[in-house]
C-alpha cells in the first residue's frame, strides 16, 4: 500500500518537475486565476454587504437601539435609563435622540427630510458623523439655532438626488424648518456631512436642547442608540438590558439593516450565483487541463500498464498531479488576494451608493473555495485517468 503511494508520488513528482515547464507554469497560473476569481467575487460582494452594515451601525443606529414601548410616542426617564444601560459591561457609547420629520425651505426651494436631535458629545461615542464633515463644522453642545445637514439636503455638494435638494445652501446661510407639530424655526447651517450612504445623507441634526424647546419635552427620546464593544453579541447585551428591567423595545442593528436587506440579499444572491458558476467553470477548466495532459500521456499510461504498474497507482499519480496544480494555484491565489488585491483595495476602495467598498476576505469562504477547488481538481484528475486506464493496453500504446 505504502509502496504504491510512493510510486504514485514518484511518478507525479517526475511528471511535474521533469515535464514541460511551460505547461506547468500555465496550469498553475490558470489555477491561481480561477481561485482569485472565486475569492475576489465573493469578497467584493461581502465587502459591499459589510459596508452597508457598517453604515447602518456607524451613521444611523449604533449596534443596539431602544425605541418607545408600543403605544407610546417617546421613551421616558432617559437620564436614569442611560445610567442603567451604562452599567452593563462592554457599552462604549449611548446617544439619545429625538427623531421627527420636518419641511425645510430655503429661498424658493423646499423639501421634507428627517431631523434628529443629539447631544453632540454623546453622539460622538456612537456614530461617526462628526468625522464625516465635508464643509463647516460639527455641532457643539452649546449650539442652539444651528443645524448640520446630510449631503443630499443643501444642494451643490454632489448628492445623488440633487434635484430634490434645497438648491445650493452654503455654510452660514439660514434655512427655515417647519416641524411636524407646526412649530417653525430658522437655523443657521453650521456644517454639511457626507457618509456616502443615502439613508444617512438625508438626515439633518440639531442640538437636543433646541429640539426639546420645539417639542416642549424634557428627559425623553424617540431613539436611544447604543454602541457595544463587540459586534455579533447583541443578543447577550439585549438579555442583560431585559434583566435590568428595561421595558422599551430593544432592537439589534440587524433589524434596521433589514431595510437595506433586499440590497444585501441581492448581493448575496449574485455572489452565490457567481460562485457557483465560477466553480463550475473552474471544474471544467481544471478537467480540460488535466484531460489534455492525460490524453497527451496516453501512450505512457499504456507503457506503465504493460510493464505491470497497477492501474490504481497510475490514477493516483494523476490525482496527485491535479492536487499539486490546485494547491499551488490556491497558494499563489491567496498570495495575490492577501498581498496584492486586498492592500490595493484598502488604498483604492470602490465607490458605491452605499459607501466605499473594499474587499472583505472571510476565512470560512476562502476555506470553502479552497476545498471546492481541490475537490474539483480531485475529480478532474480522477475522471480522465480513470478513462485512460479503461482503454486496452494496446489501444493506449499504439492507438489501435
Amino acid at each position, binding site marked *: 500500500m505504502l509502496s504504491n503511494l510512493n510510486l504514485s508520488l514518484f511518478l507525479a513528482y*517526475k511528471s511535474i518537475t*521533469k515535464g514541460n515547464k511551460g505547461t506547468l507554469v500555465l496550469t498553475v497560473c490558470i489555477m491561481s486565476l480561477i481561485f482569485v476569481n472565486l475569492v475576489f467575487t465573493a469578497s467584493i460582494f461581502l465587502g459591499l454587504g459589510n459596508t452597508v452594515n457598517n453604515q447602518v451601525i456607524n451613521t444611523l443606529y449604533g449596534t443596539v437601539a431602544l425605541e418607545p414601548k408600543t403605544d407610546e410616542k417617546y421613551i421616558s426617564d432617559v437620564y436614569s435609563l442611560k445610567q442603567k444601560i451604562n452599567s452593563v459591561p462592554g457599552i462604549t457609547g449611548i446617544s439619545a435622540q429625538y427623531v421627527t420629520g420636518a419641511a425645510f425651505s430655503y429661498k424658493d426651494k423646499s423639501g421634507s427630510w428627517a431631523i434628529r436631535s443629539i447631544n453632540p458629545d454623546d453622539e460622538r461615542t456612537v456614530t461617526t458623523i462628526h468625522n464625516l464633515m465635508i464643509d463647516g463644522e460639527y455641532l457643539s453642545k452649546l449650539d442652539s439655532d444651528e443645524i448640520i445637514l446630510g449631503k443630499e439636503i443643501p444642494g451643490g455638494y454632489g448628492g445623488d438626488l440633487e434635484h430634490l435638494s434645497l438648491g445650493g445652501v452654503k455654510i452660514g446661510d439660514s434655512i427655515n424648518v417647519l416641524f411636524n407639530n407646526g412649530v417653525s424655526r430658522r437655523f443657521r447651517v453650521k456644517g454639511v456631512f457626507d457618509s456616502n450612504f443615502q439613508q444617512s445623507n438625508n438626515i439633518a441634526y440639531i442640538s437636543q436642547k433646541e429640539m426639546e424647546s420645539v417639542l416642549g419635552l424634557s428627559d425623553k427620546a424617540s431613539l436611544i442608540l447604543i454602541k457595544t464593544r463587540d459586534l455579533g453579541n447583541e443578543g447577550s447585551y439585549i438579555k442583560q438590558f431585559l434583566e435590568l428591567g428595561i421595558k422599551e423595545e430593544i432592537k439589534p442593528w440587524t433589524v434596521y439593516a433589514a431595510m437595506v436587506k433586499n440590497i444585501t440579499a441581492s448581493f448575496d444572491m449574485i455572489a452565490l450565483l457567481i460562485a457557483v458558476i465560477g466553480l463550475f467553470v473552474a471544474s471544467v477548466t481544471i478537467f480540460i487541463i488535466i484531460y489534455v495532459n492525460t490524453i497527451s500521456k496516453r501512450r*505512457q499510461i499504456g507503457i506503465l500498464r*504493460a510493464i*505491470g504498474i497497477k492501474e490504481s*497507482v497510475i490514477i493516483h499519480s494523476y490525482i496527485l498531479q491535479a492536487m499539486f496544480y490546485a494547491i499551488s494555484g490556491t497558494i499563489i491565489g491567496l498570495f495575490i488576494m492577501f498581498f496584492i488585491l486586498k492592500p490595493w483595495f484598502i488604498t483604492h476602495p470602490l465607490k458605491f451608493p452605499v459607501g466605499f467598498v473594499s474587499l472583505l476576505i472571510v476565512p470560512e469562504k476562502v476555506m470553502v473555495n479552497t476545498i471546492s477547488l481541490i475537490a474539483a481538481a480531485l475529480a478532474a484528475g480522477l475522471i480522465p485517468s480513470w478513462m485512460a486506464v479503461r482503454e486496452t493496453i494496446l489501444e493506449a*500504446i499504439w492507438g489501435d
Partner: protein
Amino acid sequence: MVEESLIGIEKETLIKIKKLTRIYIMGEVRVPALNNVTFDIKRGEFAAIMGKSGSGKSTLLHQLGLLDAPTSGEIIIDGKNLLSLSESQKAKFRLERFGYVFQEYALLPELTALENVYLPAMALGRRKEEYVKNSTQVLEQVGLRNRLHHRPREMSGGEQQRVAIARALINKPDILFADEPTANLDSTSSKQILELFQQLNIEIGLTILMVTHEPEDRKYVNRVIWLKDGELAEQGT
C-alpha cells in the same frame, strides 16, 4: 512437464499455448488474426516468431505477454491458465514474471535511464538501496555505465533500447518478450542488441520470445516459429 531436447538435455516446458485464436471485430467485419495456434515454449529457449507482415506475429506476442486477450484458447504457465486471471492479477503477473522490449523503446521521457529501469522494482515494493544497486548493475551489464542519469532524449536509439532491455530484466523475469526490438535501429545497434539477447539467453538462461521480420536474425535464436495468415506454418531451429 519435461521433454527431451534435440541435444539430450531435459528442458522444462515453460508455456503451453493451446488453440489460441484472436479475432478482431471491426464494425460488422470479423478479422481473424490468429487461428487455433498451438505450441509450447521451453524454459531457456530463444525463439523468434517470424512471418510476413500481417501474419499475426505481434498479435501472438501480445496474447502471450498478456497485453491483449485472445478470443479463445489457453495460455498455461505453471499449470495455470493465465487467461482466467483478473486484470489486476495479470498486471501482477506481468510485473513479476515478464519483461518487455518494444520496437519504439517505450521509455518514460521524464525519467532518467536509472529511474526507467528501477520503476518496475519500485512497483514490487523493493527497498530503494536494493533497486538502485540492482538497476545500476543491470545498466552496467547492458553497457550503459556512463548513461545512468541521462534521459531518453539524450541517448541514441540503440542506447534507449538497451535501457528498455535493462528495465525488462530488473525483476528477473521468466520470459522476455521483444516485439521487433531492432526495427528502428541501424545495423550496428541491431547487432549489439541481438548479441545482448543471445548473451542473456546463454549466460542466465533467460527465455526470450522475439518477433522479427529480419531473416538474418535467425542466426541468433535457437528456434523459429513461422506464422502464415494467423496460423502456425512451421517450426525449426
